[in-house]
């Protein structure tokens, strides 16, 4: 088991390293930073001074090694926009992002999985129709529009919650609600489909034939077998949460990493963009690693292969 986790961890590290290299090379070849930052009318002397200052006069491999060395020490340079340390921007915004996305994810699971199970057991009931309708709508409404609708209802019309900002816990309610509902829709649809497929298996029919009570069939036989596809799906959803933070945080002016990333992209703040892409990659890699380790715990077959 330790060897299994170790080999997965080594691969995760390789992915991270190659992403860092790829982003670095693309950024260096996309244009001369000296020209980009100083403008086209800068004197050659000023450009040369800028290059020496930021170490841009060295060869690309050398620059990459220096970048890596600094990055390991937590030094990602300074934001071009306001001169703040990129590391500070990131460490300040990550907790904000985690607050919203982790609580939204947990609420989405708590809402979505029971709804999906009930919909699968009672097909064509009111709950089943509701689950399917919400899921279809969830695929068609852009998340930022859901956020705007919530703002309209709760901030403009009822005036019970603040529309945007990130200073108090009350500001977190609407972004969490938007995010949670949106994801609960796809979780419930997937849970329903998976459970229906499991319930059609012969071993379920056999269990029914044995006279095992329905509740025990669901809990002891159907759910454990639906767990693996569900975990896969939750992993995919967890990574897609990262893409979602970008939209949700911008709509509600929640100063997490997603909104900061959008700001940096809009302003061409490449030091911030570069560091944040690495942060996003770390998240994706960690989520995938967790999912693979969870597989091994959930499925005795995978465990015994190692």
């Amino acid at each position: 088991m330790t060897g299994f986790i170790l080999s997965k961890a080594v691969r995760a590290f390789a992915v991270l390293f190659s992403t860092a290299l790829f982003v670095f090379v693309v950024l260096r070849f996309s244009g001369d930073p000296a020209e980009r930052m100083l403008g086209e009318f800068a004197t050659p002397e000023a450009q040369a001074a800028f290059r020496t200052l930021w170490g841009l006069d060295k060869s690309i491999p050398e620059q990459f090694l220096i970048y890596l060395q600094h990055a390991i020490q937590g030094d990602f340079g300074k934001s071009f926009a306001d001169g703040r340390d990129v590391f500070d921007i990131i460490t300040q915004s990550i907790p904000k992002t985690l607050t919203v996305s982790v609580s939204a994810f947990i609420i989405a699971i708590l809402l979505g999985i029971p709804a999906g199970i009930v919909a699968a057991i009672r097909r064509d009931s009111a709950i089943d129709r509701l689950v399917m309708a919400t899921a279809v709508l969830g695929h068609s409404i852009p998340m930022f529009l859901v956020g705007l609708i919530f703002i309209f209802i709760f901030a403009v019309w009822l005036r019970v919650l603040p529309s945007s900002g990130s200073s108090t816990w009350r500001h977190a309610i609407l972004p969490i609600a938007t995010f949670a509902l949106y994801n609960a829709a796809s979780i419930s649809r997937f849970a329903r489909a998976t459970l229906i497929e499991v319930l059609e298996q012969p071993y379920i029919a056999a269990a029914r034939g044995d006279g095992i009570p329905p509740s025990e069939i669901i809990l002891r036989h159907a759910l454990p077998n639906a767990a693996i596809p569900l975990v896969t799906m939750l992993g995919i959803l967890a990574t897609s949460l990262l893409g979602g933070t970008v939209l949700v945080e911008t709509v509600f002016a929640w100063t997490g990493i997603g909104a900061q990333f959008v700001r940096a992209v809009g302003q061409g703040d490449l030091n911030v963009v570069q560091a944040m892409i690495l942060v996003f990659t770390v998240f994706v890699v960690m989520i995938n690693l967790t999912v693979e380790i969870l597989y091994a715990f959930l499925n005795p077959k995978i465990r015994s292969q190692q």
Partner: protein
Amino acid sequence: MMAQSASPTRSKRSFTSIFRLPVGILLCATWIAVILIVAIFAHWLAPFDYTQQAPLTRFAPPLKLSNHLLGTDFLGRDLLSNLLAATQTTLMVALIGGTISAIVGTSLGFLSAHFGGWVDNLVMGIADAMASVPFMIIALGVLAVFGSSPLLFVLLMGVFNWWRYARLARGLVLGANADGYAEAARIVGVPSLRIYLRHILPNIAGPLVVQFTLNFPEIVLMESGLSFLGVGIKPPAISLGLMISYGTSYFAIAWWLVALPGLVLVLTTLSISLLGDYLRDRLDARLR
């Protein structure tokens, strides 16, 4: 007795099938047709130039002024004309982007299935990598590095989701290669390229078309998301996402600036994905 007389022959069934469509699906198809006509003829249908400003008639609500049917925005521009132009841009971007990803993805899927070995590993490896990172992040990174331009933006929409076609086409071609007809064509000496294009492609087109209808709403949503964030379609061009983004600043005093483009967007994506789901259920069990 009834059931017997009601079972027509196969040719009759396809002829009358349009009358047997569920009402919901007919509504979806009607909306898509309307929106397509709008997209093609936007310039002729629009009562005003969509960029024409009229500071004196700002924030007119829908149905208030007789010449501005859907009202005006914060610069006094006619909302209906803006909506028409925006729908056109959004659909064009999604159509071109969707077509590019369908062609690129399908071709790579064919290559993957034909050569196998390291080509297969490489293509499927890239597909896995792209599938695991949220495309929103990739797109924002690319737009940050290269700056936003209409061409780059459409190309970006073209690489979004190509891997779905690649995975699907690869699987279908591997299946078709094992089928009798491809084997027979190969034995009589038909060249590989011809087998793929003339024999296999028409046979596997169904699932690929279904995939297109399922992907289309996602591209529309991605486009409007990026435009909403201010890095997609840029003024003076206009798209549905950009209209909503403009409208958010005046949300509290002019709800229609967000509601109307939002409604068009949702109705369009909803119609296409319902139609896609319906086609998938009817035509193809492999995608379920």
